[in-house]
């Protein structure tokens, strides 16, 4: 593990010892629990040794297991040091929400909306928690909201859940 990674892990560990770093194919991922991930993210941005001043993306992973079903992933980039890290936070299927990180990085606004739209994970304190790509009434016949990137969503969608223009008869 490179000295860059060791620095990043040390900064994260100074906030909470409850972090699990994983290196895979030269990329660093740090698993953090939901009680501490906000502090870890803020420290990674503000610490002069890391300076992760850019949030590149937020997405989620549906592991299709219960109750520890989702991972929300934060992709960070330091423009000064040109190093990157992924922060993964577990989300249980009986508690589908996380606090927002809009206060730390403004760019989180649309990424969190996209994650909500695709997986149904809500972000507490988000200024505009609406769907991003899909229509607000994207639901099945029973009125259950649909989230297309969940593993239990059929690949071809649910017939009738998205409207088409009426066909003119000739």
């Amino acid at each position, binding site marked *: 593990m490179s000295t860059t990674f060791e620095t990043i892990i040390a900064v994260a560990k100074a906030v909470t010892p409850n972090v699990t770093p994983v290196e895979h194919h030269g990329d660093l991922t740090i698993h953090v629990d939901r009680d501490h991930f906000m502090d870890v993210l803020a420290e990674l941005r503000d610490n002069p040794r890391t300076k992760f001043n850019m949030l590149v993306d937020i997405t989620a992973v549906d592991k299709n297991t219960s109750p520890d079903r989702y991972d929300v992933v934060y992709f960070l980039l330091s423009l000064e040091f040109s190093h990157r890290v992924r922060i993964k936070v577990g989300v249980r299927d009986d508690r589908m929400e996380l606090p927002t990180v809009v206060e730390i990085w403004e760019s989180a606004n649309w990424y969190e909306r996209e994650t909500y739209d695709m997986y149904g994970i809500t972000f507490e304190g988000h200024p505009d928690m609406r769907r991003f790509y899909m229509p607000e009434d994207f639901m099945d016949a029973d009125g259950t909201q649909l989230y297309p990137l969940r593993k239990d969503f059929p*690949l071809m969608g649910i017939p009738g859940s*998205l409207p088409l223009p009426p066909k003119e008869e000739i």
Partner: protein
Amino acid sequence: MGLNEHLTRDGFVTTTLESVVTWAQRNSLWPMPMGISCCAIEMMAFGGPRADSSRFGSERFSFSPRQADLMIVAGTVTYKMSWVVKKIWDQMPDPKWCIAMGVCTSSGGMFRSYPVVQGIDQFLPVDAYVAGCPPRPEALMKALMYIQEKVSASKPTLANFGKDTGTVNRGEIITI
């Protein structure tokens, strides 16, 4: 006696109104380029010097649907985009024709997934489906020639205005 002799000697020819109207229509089909994705690149090549759609009177891509009478839907149509395509189609004056260019437009193609319309014939009357991913400009030319045939066979008199009276069926599949 040829057309030239008639015109030079008599100064007039006798024919039917339908023949004249369809002759004019089929040799000046103005396409509405509904270029949504990569098929649009081949559609541009179709207008370029090698394929040269101006040989068929179709070099004038009409970026206003109000002056177009042939819509070439070139690309993947999503459910979100379908309303836009339909809105543009509705702005085109009758009589009008539609080419579904490429497999995405014709059947969803490789995008067998929830946001992509599995064939634009679910909401548009398609005259010709062009196979290929993307189709070569020659295939689009063949589709245009098919539409020309169809226009020739149509009966554009006032009584039939707006009706599909052609003897050629809708939904021909074009392959080269």
